[in-house]
């Protein structure tokens, strides 16, 4: 059972204390929350610290290309129905950030942990999770990330011996490939709008057939498993066939999918769907995402989209034309320095919206929109874009560092 009954070893205690001191120094120096530096210091003093900290927790790991932070938050809210939760809620999702988050939760019963895709197999080995939730895999930061299918292959190898219950999206063939070497999988039909990373069978390379919502490989027979949980419009169907309404404050289909997966995770710990879902309704914004802020006398909704799959889901949740849209794209290290992914995004979906373009790579975006045949205006700053935008709540869509820039400017 969870709950800190056994004390940490002296070495682990020292590591936690040193890590907290480093984090405090980092915060005092104005360098963010300090969770990453704190975790790094602590891990250097005790490399086994992550495992030691997790030993007393029922751990849930969450990984994906998109939706990790939000789903981590939804699962954490749901499990609070059953006990205290510690979580890396701000998205510091590599081993140092995770260590730091766990060190702050000595009284917790549950650890709900977002994990960067590249570190999932290693973290899963260190913390012996009870549940691993896998949402989706698609192209992201191709200048430095592993190829998408290779990542799925690594997950598959890393998870094959795990005793965890894998809660996985059966609508993403790469996720199914990753999870299907595991013994205990709960399949969730959570949907996946983006399909362009899985036309080729992850098992044999054959061409994938995709009639309707189904998919299968015509050559080797690899196919969509039968789900026990299903997202169906505004409802999630549980394994007993009961339909539970999803009323989130968070917008969009993708968040309903995240809620469906979260309900399936909560059920593993005995939290019933209606209890889990009701707790999720309270979530309004996640690390600034989906927040509506007042700026220069206007209402601006902040939306984060980091890759083609994320942009596609975001287009489906914005208000219809003539709602003005501000787009901001950077290509700094954390974004990936290659902007070619802009051409995988179907910007014609924005036809009819007044469009304003900002960010370090506004000219890449300008050419992209020109070729899509859209009208747009290139602006130097967020202020200029907001001031030029016609009346109505503004939808602002930005990739990672562009989103941080916007949050700083609007004081979010």
């Amino acid at each position, binding site marked *: 059972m969870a709950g800190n009954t056994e004390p940490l070893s002296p070495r682990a205690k020292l590591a936690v204390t040193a890590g907290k001191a480093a984090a405090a120094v980092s915060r005092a120096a104005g360098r963010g929350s300090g969770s990453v530096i704190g975790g790094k210091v602590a891990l250097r003093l005790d490399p086994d610290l992550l495992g030691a900290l997790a030993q007393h927790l029922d751990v849930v790991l969450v990984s994906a290309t998109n939706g990790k932070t939000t789903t981590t938050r939804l699962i954490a809210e749901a499990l609070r129905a059953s006990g205290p939760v510690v979580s890396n809620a701000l998205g510091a999702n590599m081993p140092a950030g995770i260590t730091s988050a766990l060190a702050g939760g000595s009284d917790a019963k549950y650890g709900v942990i977002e994990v960067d895709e590249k570190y999932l197999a290693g973290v899963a080995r260190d913390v012996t999770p009870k549940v691993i939730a896998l949402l989706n895999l698609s*192209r992201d930061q*191709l*200048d*430095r990330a592993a*190829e*998408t*299918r*290779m990542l799925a292959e690594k997950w598959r190898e890393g998870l094959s011996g795990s005793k965890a219950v894998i809660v996985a999206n059966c609508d993403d063939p790469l996720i199914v490939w990753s999870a299907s070497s595991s013994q205990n999988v709960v399949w969730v039909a959570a949907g996946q709008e983006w399909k*362009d990373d899985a*036309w*080729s069978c992850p098992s044999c*390379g054959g*061409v*994938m057939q995709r009639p309707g919502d189904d998919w299968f490989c*015509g050559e080797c027979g690899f196919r969509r498993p039968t789900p026990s949980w299903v997202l169906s419009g505004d409802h999630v169907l549980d394994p007993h066939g009961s339909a539970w309404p999803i009323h989130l404050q968070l917008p969009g289909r993708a968040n309903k999918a995240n809620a469906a997966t979260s309900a399936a995770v909560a059920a593993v710990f005995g939290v019933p769907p209606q209890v889990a879902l009701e707790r999720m309704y309270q979530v309004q914004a996640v690390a600034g995402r989906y927040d509506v802020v007042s700026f220069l006398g206007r209402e601006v909704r902040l939306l984060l989209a980091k890759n083609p799959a994320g942009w596609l889901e975001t287009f489906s949740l914005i208000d219809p034309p003539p709602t003005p849209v501000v787009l901001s794209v950077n290509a700094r290290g954390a974004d990936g*320095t*290659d*902007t*070619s*992914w*802009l*051409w*995988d995004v179907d910007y014609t979906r924005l036809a009819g919206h007044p469009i304003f373009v900002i960010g370090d790579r506004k*000219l*890449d975006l*300008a*050419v*992209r929109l*020109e*070729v*899509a*045949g859209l009208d747009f205006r290139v602006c130097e700053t967020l202020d200029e874009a907001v001031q030029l935008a016609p009346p109505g709540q503004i939808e602002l869509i930005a990739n990672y560092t562009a989103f941080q820039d916007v949050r700083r400017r609007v004081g979010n």
Partner: protein
Amino acid sequence: MSDNSLRLVWIYPDLLSTYGDQGNALVVERRARQRGLDVQRVDVRSDQPIPTSGDIYLIGGGEDRPQRLAAERLVRDGGLERAVSNGAIVFSVCAGYQILGKEFVNDVGQRQEGLGLLDVVSVRGEGERCVGDVLADIDPRLGLPQLTGFENHQGVTHLGPTARPFARLSMGRGNGTGDGTEGAYNDTVFGTYMHGPVLARNPLVADLLLKLALDVNALPGLDDRWYEALRTERISAATQPA
């Protein structure tokens, strides 16, 4: 090429469309339509036959396993070779460029047969992966301005006697042979390591493909101010230290 219609074929987007390669198809399509051409774009999946009556064929970049599968399927199909012998124009990028050559090294480390439409042979580079902005001067015979692009590959491509270097590098690794060349071409078949996508960064290369397909020396001008602004920014970024 019949009257004012243009048949644009995009080969195997299911396998070779990892680096925004659709952009090259979109740019050619847009610039052709802006000149009043009736464009028929055909996206050919790798379980479908390659049509032999296309005017321009585009083939993009991809990961190592899809590259092997694409080469196997294209060699088996034979349609692209027939199209080229009918005078079609082919523009290829990265993994697609290697496939058009005589041979490349595949994901399992074996030498694999390509289509032989370009006199080049590719191997896997020993050093670090080439990632970053590239600047090069295109072969003066083609009468085009500086080439700007983004490379992300590990390949090294050696040119044989009947392939001409597409460009001479001033920044970046290009063919990776250390001889300062980037890409290769013959009369109607082009290959480059440039992503970006390359035709969005170099719209006059897209126009060259159109001119070759239409067999004309000039095309009506377009309002290229956003392309020009992007080119100026990227060329200046490539020449300034980060």
